């Protein structure tokens, strides 16, 4: 089963990288880019046929490793 997880910074947390990417795009002429937040994308292939079981495992690894829950949120995308 293929599942992807997107990890993003929590809403009020500073994103130094996104800030610089946005400014660079503006300098490159893209004046209508309002904001950019940089995150991470994980594509996971899991050997588990039971959807509920798979969901639980992905939740667990998202909390325990993939995201730093102090400053990040995660979204699980089931394909």
């Amino acid at each position: 089963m293929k599942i992807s997880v997107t990890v993003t910074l929590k809403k009020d947390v500073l994103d130094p990288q996104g800030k610089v990417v946005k400014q660079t795009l503006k300098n490159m002429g893209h004046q209508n880019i309002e904001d950019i937040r940089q995150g991470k994308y994980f594509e996971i292939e899991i050997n588990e046929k039971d959807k509920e079981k798979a969901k639980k495992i992905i939740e667990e690894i998202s909390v325990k490793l993939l995201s730093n829950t102090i400053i990040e949120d995660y979204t699980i995308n089931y394909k």
Partner: protein
Amino acid sequence: MKISSEIINKHGINSKEYKKIVNLIGRDPNLLELGIFSAMWNEHCSYKSSKKYLRTLPTKNSKVIQGPGENAGVIDIEDNDALVFKIESHNHPSFIEPYQGAATGVGGILRDIFTMGARPIATLNSIHFGSPSHPKTKNLLSGVVSGIGGYGNCIGIPTIGGEVKFDSSYNENILVNAMAVGLTKKNKIFYSKAEGINKSVIYVGSKTGRDGIHGASMASAEFDDDADEKKPTVQVGDPFTEKLLLEACLELMKDNSIISIQDMGAAGLTSSSVEMASKGNLGIEINLNKIPCREKKMTPYEMMLSESQERMLLIINSGKEENAKKIFTKWGLDFSVIGKTTNTKNLVLNFDEEKVADLPLTALSVDAPVYDRKWKKNSNSNKKNYPKNYQEKKLYESLQKILISPNNSEKSWIWEQYDQTVMGDSIQKPGGDSGVIRIHGKNKGVALTVDSSSHYCLANSISGGKQVVCEAWRNLISAGSTPIAITNCLNFGNPEKEEIMGQFVETIDGISQACRYLNFPVVSGNVSFYNETKNKAISPTPTIGGVGLIKNLDNVMTKNFKEIGNHILIIGKTLGHLNQSEFFREVLNFKEGPPPDTNLFNEKNNGLAILNLISNKLVSSVHDVSSGGILLALSEMGIQNKIGALIKLPKNNVKIHEYLFGEDQSRYIIEVKERNMKKTSKILKDNNIYFEKIGITQKSFIEIKNILKADLNDLEKLNKYWFNNYFNESI
């Protein structure tokens, strides 16, 4: 509208303090004003539990230009050069989010340096973790080291020294103390005192977000089971923006545009505006609509208490604003005139054309509570207390155990993650007794060290406080520098407990005694209280950052044995004090008994004699004898060049374990060429310095005739083993 007592409580203000607030301002504060008081009156900003005792520390000598009370301390290092330095803690945030906590700790201390007009030229750090077997330690250690490196390397400032200690007392309360040193000219020092009425108050740097609101309060609260709930208060550091801020500030400081400048650290805009105005005995009025905000719909409360990083507050001379704006815009930073100085002596805040706060500055600063907390004497045990059968321990195996222990292991795993040579002036990198930085473009340098001895302080706080200052002094002398002054970071548990307050009072006593005697004053620093979780406090940990001057870099000294066939002398008498030694603690797991006391008379004389020998070019290597005693010191001197020692034990009444592992203070081991022995002996004798000739240098082995023979290659392998093994990496 009166605020509920629950909210007042949550702001860390007790009922007595609240009554005082009402008295001072003549009414109940509104929520914003309460928040402001909460930030300014908490321990971290007001020093309410420590002020009484901090005032007793010696803070002056002929080289001190600025003592405590400014962003950092400043000393004269001759030739119109001035050195700006300070050490500060960032303990609680680093426990919660180790990378960002440590990173923003480095960011904060760097700002304290360049806010005074000095380009930072070196950083050091002292980090303390729980027992290696504790489940949190590994992640905390690697996170903190990554964070320090991630921030410091990005800005391009070399990390030239440090220490890492492990002890179970830090299991739930790690310590991250960051020190920074900067260089400027004597006539180019910038202060935070506001001057002049109706001057523009200008905000520069990053935009303000909701980061760390009430971080200063967090530093003044112990952790409990809800430490997780403190999560949103951790700030994210942006070292790139800090580098831009550094360059922009230094560029602006080239002329005389700036009247005063203050960085926004703990309690952000609140503390910086209050401190600037109250130091200058002025008032300040701020229009909060002018604050550059990162998030939408920020409230005045959020703006005033935000701890967003990489921001400064400036007061600029009339007519120079346009040029200043140009500079900050060039470097891509926000620049906003947010208010002005007034003659009301009040902090006035306006938002959406309404006055939202109006407080007398004295209430927030000089009238903040100062407590005289009850305390209990702690310096009781002076009785020697030895475990049975310690003499049965084999010497070589004991040395091995000490060398392979985490506290005594070689720490290149850590400091190779820090750039040590950027800026091209690193004369002595981490691993020696002190780091040495050349003053750019000149042939002089400064030696820098950071030291702590928490187990000594726990056993006897007065002795411990004395000892740690002397340890720093000795480390500076071993590098060939004349010690000038120190900065200190005082890390303790809950001061509302008599035992902890006692540790604090007595440690300060010890520190004062040593500083006074050695003419080695405190010019800056901070206090971190409440390092305690579920009633378990850390061992008292005063961290001392020492600075010394090397007038001519031809006289830099290192600790590694240089040549075979040279004499080895030990300066200072060995009586064999074993309590609190590495031998007892690591090999016998015995932690009781008093620490070694330091005889200040001997400390001073021995140190000055060493400097005398170094300046007369009579010694080839110097190393102070401290933790681990003579045997460890000899090993450390031998490992790099694989030149060891052949030792013949002097005839005295000291038993062998006592002699080799005793941690008596004020001692040095020196290497002297045959042709320099006569002059060396004369200088030592003329100055009444006790010394012993203990052997000669030889190839490959640390050897005590008929007793011990250790191959330096083996000792090196042991000493480099621990960190790589802990992190499962091949060497």
